């Protein structure tokens, strides 16, 4: 009888039963798929980006499909942190998987205030700080594209919480590693790499943008090679765990991210295509480890070989 592989990973002191996490903005408030999948089988659930006050989101059309990808300009439409805790979170009390709140603010003090509220909410296990959403005019991208402000936001959040702090980085910068290093120095315990890539699409007959907001964030398999490269870069520069995401559609994609240095991964757009993707990735990783006699999934993280290296050992 082969030994059951150990898929568990640690993110800033938080132990996940496996490295598969659902990405913010692609998993609603966590409970929408309760009837379709066993949420307790997931490594963790990251809920929709939450702000201090409710946000309506951008005018429609907010979403357009492009080859192998989706452009969206949802703009963090959400009910606000207080309504989330009161109305949405109770549905997740029985779920045996850590709930991570993705948070964003329009100012440093807003980040601090949301963090304080979450600090008093036992069911929320960790925070993922969004400094990278490209759709918010004030905040969002402005914080994440500059090492100094990215670090400042991280400090503000860290000061107000004892929970693990993950910072989600934007790919829309010239040098992601310098921001990663700055955020690590400011106390972040993990990094999510990466958010959507800015893009646009035009309807030729009308010459109008396909999104009412003109620009949006590109996600899906179209961005996977780029996301993989960013994870590779960042993982080689920081000591804290990197959570890789960007176009992961199956367990083999997930393995690519682990091999280049990710400790855990997130499933985003793929959930729209097939709501069971995250569960299938968990099963796929389990079976892969079993068949390759890999005892613990951590052995895969950062196991990228040199091109000329022998292929004999797995």
């Amino acid at each position, binding site marked *: 009888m082969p030994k059951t592989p150990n898929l568990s990973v640690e993110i800033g002191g938080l132990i996940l039963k496996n490295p598969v996490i659902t990405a913010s903005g692609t998993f609603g408030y966590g409970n929408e798929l309760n009837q379709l999948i066993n949420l307790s089988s997931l490594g963790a659930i990251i809920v929709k980006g939450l702000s201090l006050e409710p946000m*309506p989101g951008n005018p*429609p059309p907010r979403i357009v499909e492009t080859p192998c990808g989706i452009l969206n300009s949802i703009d963090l439409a959400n009910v606000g942190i207080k309504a989330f805790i009161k109305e949405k979170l109770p549905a997740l009390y029985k779920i045996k998987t850590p709930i991570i709140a993705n948070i964003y603010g329009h100012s440093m003090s807003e980040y601090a205030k949301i963090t304080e509220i979450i600090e008093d909410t036992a069911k929320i296990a960790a925070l993922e700080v969004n400094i990278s959403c490209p759709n918010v005019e004030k905040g969002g991208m402005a914080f994440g594209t500059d090492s100094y402000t990215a670090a400042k936001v991280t400090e503000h959040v860290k000061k107000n919480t004892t929970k693990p702090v993950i910072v989600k980085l934007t790919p829309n910068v010239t040098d992601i590693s310098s921001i990663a290093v700055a955020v690590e120095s400011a106390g972040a315990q993990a990094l999510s790499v990466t958010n959507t890539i800015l893009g646009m699409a035009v309807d030729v007959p009308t010459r109008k943008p396909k999104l009412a907001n003109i620009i949006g964030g590109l996600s899906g398999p179209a961005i996977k090679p780029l996301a993989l490269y960013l994870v590779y870069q960042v993982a080689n520069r920081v000591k804290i765990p990197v959570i890789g995401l960007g176009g992961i559609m199956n367990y083999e994609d997930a393995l690519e991210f682990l091999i280049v240095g990710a400790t855990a991964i997130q499933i985003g757009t793929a959930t*729209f295509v097939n*709501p069971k993707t995250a569960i299938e990735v968990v099963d796929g990783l389990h079976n892969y480890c079993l068949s390759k006699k890999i005892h613990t999934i951590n052995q895969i993280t950062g196991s990228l070989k040199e091109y000329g290296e022998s292929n004999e050992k797995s």
Partner: protein
Amino acid sequence: MIAQNIYLMGFHSKKMALISKPGQFLMIHLVGTQMDPLLARPFSVHSIKDNDTLVILYKTVGKGTSLLSLSKEGDAISIIGPLGNGFPLPGKSQIPLLVAGGMGIAPLFFLSQLLINIKQYELKMFLGFSTSKEIVLFNELTSLGLDLSIATNDGSYGNKGLVTDILDQYLERNSHIKPMIYACGPVDMLKKVSLRAISLNLTCYVSLESQMACGLGLCQGCAIKANNTTNKPYYYVCQDGPIFLAEMIDWGSL
């Protein structure tokens, strides 16, 4: 194929067939094409056949529907549904009027089947097509016992003009009755029907479409602006709809 670029397609699923209601929709994706087109497409349930088969009606408009039209019996297909709220049924004394523009006939066919089964309504349906070649299901609808009024944009069949023209004429001639309107079709048509219904103080349900990534309330992509009088800025077609009361929608934004 039942007309040029228009297809009827059935999927065997007793479980889904038994619980589907008129106005609800399915997210359908051909297995094996997960990369491009990436997303499933929403289709309203067109009818239920033999209590175990879901039928959809669609026109090929892009890559997703074209590939679907080329699929064969036995091909693997992913279907999530039934999703959404469905049409509320009329009260005992209410006279339902069904208004369909083009492929808008899809969910209204299912509704008319159900209404005829529940009670012998004198069902009246207004249909608009761009041209006579696109007229579908004429025999099926008449055999259900529906009273049909048809308009075509080019005048190749029935009244020349829009379906909203023949609806307006009917409402003018019959101002003594207070019908309940069910409408599905292009957004411009729904807007006209809705504004007319609101001005006449008639109950009107519309089936709305939107770009949609998941159909499950995860992405919040399918936003439709809510009317100012409501406290919600946007409705989500997949979760709050796809059936809406006409006055719930900010028609000026569409």
